[in-house]
């Protein structure tokens, strides 16, 4: 699964990004940003046993949050401070949540040991 999906998704996102830059297409750029964050988190799914579904849910939630921010910034009418305030709210809300979810879904490898040398 990983041997096919990862190169396919990476190639698609890289090609889409170059197209977004060449044609100055913010909608395509937003799509790449949402997909890249979601796919990045999903890379750890195969290293989880008990928390696979939870991690997929975290990835989906993170993608939705980025999509909501980019969508609102692109669609809201220009003028006024609303879109600036939205940026700050995005950081303030997600900063404590994302790393907490990382800790909650983390699983150390079974053969983990202390490697420190003095």
């Amino acid at each position: 699964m990983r041997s096919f999906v990862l190169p396919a998704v990476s190639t698609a996102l890289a090609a889409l990004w170059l197209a977004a830059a060449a044609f100055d297409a913010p909608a395509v750029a937003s799509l790449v940003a949402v997909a890249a964050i979601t796919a990045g988190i999903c890379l750890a799914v195969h290293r989880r046993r008990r928390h696979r579904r939870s991690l997929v849910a975290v990835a989906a939630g993170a993608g939705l949050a980025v999509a909501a921010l980019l969508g609102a910034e692109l669609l809201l009418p220009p003028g006024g401070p609303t879109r600036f305030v939205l940026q700050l709210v995005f950081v303030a809300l997600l900063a404590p949540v994302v790393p907490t979810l990382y800790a909650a879904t983390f699983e150390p490898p079974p053969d983990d040991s202390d490697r420190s040398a003095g």
Partner: protein
Amino acid sequence: MTTALVVLAALAVGLAVWGWRHGGTELAYFAAARSAGPLLAGLGGTAAGLSAFVFVGGPGLFATLGAASLWIILSAPFTGSLQCWVVGEPVVALAEKHDCLTVPDLVEARFGGGWPRGLAAIAIALGGIAVLAVQVKGLAVVGETLLGIPGPSIAAATVAATALYTAAGGMRAGLFAEAAQGTLMAVVSVALAVAALTAAGGPSAAVATFVSHRPELLDPWHGVGATGAIAWFLLFALGTCAQPHYLQKFLLLRSAASLRWLPLVMTGALVAVLTVWVGLGLGAGALWAGGRLVVAGPDDLAPAFLARTAPWLLVAAVVAVLAAVMSTAASLLNVVAAALVRDLPLAVHLRLPRSLTPARLATLAAAAAGGAFAVASARQVALLGIVGWGTFTAALFPAVVLGLNWPGATRHGAVAALLLGPATQLLLELLHHAGRLAPSWEPGLAGTAVGVLALVTVSLLSSRSVS
């Protein structure tokens, strides 16, 4: 102020002596004897990643581009966790299996020695010197404006102090210093943000000033366009997974279990430090927009505001900027030295010297090269920082991120990506510098995309030809 500088110099000398005694092996010098838990690695990693770029360049960029500049830092809630999900977990596993001390060690463990290790080392050496130049340039601005000392003098003194303890003790000395510097930076950043917003009459009054005087700065796409701004968001979200001084922190961890709380420490410290970008940018920017603060140029916004604050806050700010510069410089000096005296010689099958003297000399040489590059470059601090970040991302993201997570990536694919990614980025940087590149093209991200395409295509072709 003089007392603070003398105390800092004494601490640097003390750390150098301690580091000389405890950093005598390769493991201690390049990987801090794998002694780091989540707190040390998280604070140290954040301090190493945040520099003059944030304290001087960030508020300056906010004054130029406003809300559009925030796309660089909007990925902050994700970056710590994303690093661990994407590269931290596989890096710790690979380092444990192959006893890796440096990022090119990881590349060799995955793709074999020779070209992959050599190209990774070259990218780290060149990108590292560019990012070192950002530190020198930021310090020069702060030194001239706040201390009344010629910029090159304060920059040379600070980089020399950092080079002293880094050359003596490597990361064994650097890690403790970075963790302390990260804590200091977080506390002072919040204080500076509060002071700037208070001086502007509070956040609402600052925003109201922008609405009436500079409304374009509240537009999230101002100056760079929507595609260009989203490119910054992506470059800094994904690029954290490919910065060698960030990746280095995973090599210092004592166990994989340390990863659990690492993102929480990193994100907490990161968001605290980044308040200076938003707070100082918004507060001091509002004072500038309203005509209550005279500023010569964007990079002078932070120093100009600090020059009129309470003396204790000015001292704290200068110490925090010095801490930011020293922490980033220490990590970069160490990875550049490792690239020059360990990774490049190993790539061409030379025997390594048994002593750490060449590494110590390379640390001093890297510091001198960073200073020379800063003097030669006329670009704004933040923009110089983006170039260095982009070089690392374009060069290392495909080979490290895809390479560690996709079993089908081949040695030929990695070499193609390590060549084409940074080559594309540097070509686009030249076009950008000449004013011949549309804002929708972010050179670092475009280089990364080309590197990813090269890695996948060449890997598939080379694995077919082998089979």
